[in-house]
């Protein structure tokens, strides 16, 4: 190769190498751009058929709804598209829309007809989340901006789940009809927007890019010119990306939280929020080895929850008292079995069952956290003579193992460490543990008539005190059955760049990007 050509090549490579860091510096210094991490990529943008909270995070920015969760540390809601909303009686809710909320792409102003269409299509098309709308009968349109939501029976979760979350978003009837022909699921192709941001670009598995909606005239002015949400499944990757300056907002793993508290990255704030998730050890009451309540109670009392918190959550999560997290209606101040348990009591229960030893198995998801929890429980149960076999399952297998529709595996299910997500209404927690759910999602096969009655009645009770007492009783019944040892609600620490962003989070740490502001 001629020497001149070689020199040219070296010069070219040198120029490229020197320009790369500059390119990056320019990119990082661009205007008001927020780069945030989410744990999964979006896969549904039709609010009537939403599936996961990470989709709703984006929907919150691009659509409007009558009311929204108020950012902060206490659960409450505020008006958004509604100028007013009131519970006329147990089954009627009248709303009045703000004037001048416009849909993009020439689809005009948001009307009560759009509200009616958005809510009724969830029922009409048998959406997977039609349960959110519970007993919705129909929506009456009184004029362009006023309507009445008519329920078949009282339904309190409407104020905590339905209206301020996924199904509460309002879409343009005209736009959706044009797009789908029948008003059904439009999947990932929103025909128009009504929030302070619009979906400018979605690059699957790379990012979601939201930009300011130029037609938006509502009260919540967008804080950023652009919000870029990057899907990153791995928390550690997200933490490295944050430290490298590639993202400005992310959840922190509990494993890293202690280190970060000791050695905080520059220009960083960490806010800690309790999560709504609930994790528990469940016991299949129909399994021959666990049929005797004394055996189950022995296991309950032998499990020391703070020890599990230390090992699996690095001491950063608190023991739970039940299904319902602090701050929500129905939260119990204390569990029936103390968090530390008591080995003597456990041994007494085992003796009552006529046993001095027992072999049982526990099924857990194949992630290190769950395996650690199982190993701690294994050591704890060994102290009372219970030998625990740990069976690790992949997620697909795990999440169907208690389902009768999936074969006979439920018969072999003994102990299980389980974790469910939650939205801020207790109804959402207790609905999985009714008799109807046995063999569906109720894998402990706990069935209690009183529990079911309370569950049915509590959705209709508007007095928070009375309603709370009902849910507390339900959790007492669960725990008293011996089938449950409640572990934790986990925690949701969030890390962000102090000089760049002033985040707005729900009380469980879920980001409300719509209200994020520049610092």
């Amino acid at each position, binding site marked *: 190769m001629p020497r001149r050509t070689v020199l040219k090549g070296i010069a070219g490579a040198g120029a490229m190498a020197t320009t790369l860091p500059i390119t990056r510096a320019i990119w990082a210094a661009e205007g008001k751009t927020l780069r945030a991490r989410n744990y999964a990529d979006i896969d*549904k943008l039709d609010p009537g058929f939403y599936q996961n909270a990470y989709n709703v995070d984006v929907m919150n920015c691009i659509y409007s709804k009558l009311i929204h969760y108020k950012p902060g540390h206490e659960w409450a809601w505020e008006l958004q598209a509604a100028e007013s909303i009131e519970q006329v009686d147990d089954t009627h809710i009248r709303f009045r829309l703000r004037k001048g909320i416009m849909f993009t792409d020439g689809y005009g102003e948001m009307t009560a007809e759009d509200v009616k269409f958005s809510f009724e299509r969830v029922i009409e098309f048998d959406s997977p989340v039609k349960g959110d709308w519970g007993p919705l009968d129909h929506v009456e349109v009184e004029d362009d901006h006023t309507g009445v939501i008519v329920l078949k029976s009282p339904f309190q979760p409407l104020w905590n789940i339905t209206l301020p979350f996924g199904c509460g978003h309002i879409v343009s009837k005209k736009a959706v009809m044009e797009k789908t022909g029948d008003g059904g699921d439009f999947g990932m192709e929103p025909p128009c927007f009504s929030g302070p941001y619009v979906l400018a670009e979605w690059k699957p598995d790379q990012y979601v890019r939201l930009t300011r909606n130029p037609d938006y005239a509502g009260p919540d002015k967008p804080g950023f010119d652009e919000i870029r949400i990057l899907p990153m499944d791995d928390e550690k990757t997200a933490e490295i990306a944050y430290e490298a300056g590639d993202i400005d907002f992310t959840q922190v793993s509990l494993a890293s939280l202690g280190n970060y508290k000791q050695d905080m990255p520059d220009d960083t704030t960490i806010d800690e929020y309790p999560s709504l998730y609930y994790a528990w050890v469940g016991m299949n009451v129909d399994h021959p080895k666990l049929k005797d309540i004394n055996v189950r109670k022995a296991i309950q009392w032998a499990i020391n929850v703070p020890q599990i918190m230390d090992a699996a959550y690095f001491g950063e999560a608190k023991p739970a008292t039940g299904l319902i997290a602090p701050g929500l209606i129905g939260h119990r101040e204390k569990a029936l079995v103390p968090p530390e348990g008591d080995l003597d009591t456990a041994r007494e229960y085992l003796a009552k069952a006529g046993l001095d030893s027992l072999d049982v198995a526990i099924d857990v998801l194949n992630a290190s956290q769950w395996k650690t929890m199982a190993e701690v429980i294994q050591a704890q149960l060994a102290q009372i003579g219970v030998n625990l076999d740990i069976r690790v399952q992949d997620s697909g*297998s795990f999440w169907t193992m208690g389902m009768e529709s*999936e074969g006979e595996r439920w018969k072999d299910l003994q102990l299980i460490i389980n974790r469910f997500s939650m939205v801020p209404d207790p109804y959402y927690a207790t609905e999985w543990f009714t008799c109807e759910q046995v063999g569906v999602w109720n894998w402990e096969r706990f069935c209690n008539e009183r529990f079911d009655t309370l569950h049915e009645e509590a959705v209709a009770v508007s007095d928070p005190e009375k309603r709370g007492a009902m849910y507390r009783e339900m959790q007492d019944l669960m725990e008293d059955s011996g089938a449950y040892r409640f572990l934790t609600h986990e925690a949701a620490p969030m890390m962000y760049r102090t000089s760049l962003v002033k985040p707005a989070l729900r009380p469980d740490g879920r980001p409300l990007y719509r209200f994020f502001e520049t610092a």
Partner: protein
Amino acid sequence: MWIYFLRRTVLAIAIVAIAVTLLRVMIHAVPGDPAVMMLGPRATPALIAEFREKMGLNEPFHVQMVTFFANLLKGDMGTDVFTGRSVTQIVMEQFPYTVELIFTSVGWAALVGIPLGCYSAIRRNTLFDKITGIASVGTISIPSFVMALYALLIFAVGLGWLPAVGAGEGTLGDRLHHLILPSLAVGIPWVGYTARIVRASMLEVLGENHVRMARAFGLPEMRIIFRYALPIAILPTITLLGVGVAYLLSAAVFAEVIFARPGIGSLIVNAVDERNYPIVMGCVLVTTVLIVVATMISDFVNALLDPRAREGL
């Protein structure tokens, strides 16, 4: 040569068909109803039934296979039941990212490994050879994900020279910038492999009669190496790199997850997790084709360079 080409192509098609069929068998054997997994706990039985119908899960196995291959001939790999998007479109969006990652990694292996191995063989038993030997074994023994994590901590977090995550914004410069770390993490072990293989082959070839003859005729050393030794010594390396694509694909899975890059690896991991079978099938089909094509190319190159190889099949 053409008969060789034809036979290899027929064999390649058979391999792809067998791989896809085996995968489908495994999908049927694995517990977990994909419809339940995808629709979530609140789906009604009617919706689950409709969904199963839409995914073709109610059909007998052989009907599912025939339908899949028939659609495949039309370029249709099905529909992602989550997003409603075409699987072909989804897979083809991600495929270039994996291909560029794999081939850049192979590029590292070839561009660095071959000269290193070659020079080590020429300078056998010198300090350079010994250092190269230690470094090669060192890189081979470090798993890709460990390499990826340390590369991230050093070059992205510590020095801030390179981005930690993503694949770039579309401009070539930015994409290359985002490619350096992942490809380095995936490719570095192969630099070591390649260097060791090239060195061993070169030492063998340099001791053969035709090389000794060339030296006896007084040909320049560089000409002997590049004209008479390296073309023969490189053959095992070409085979290695062809087969290496399969290994690099699995390493790419880690890299794509750790560097939060798009690509077939991260797509397939998520799809398996969610029991999103149309995507799993599409990804496996494409990766099988990639491996088969890479192996075929390396066989053809071998056959071109060494006529004896054409008689191998």
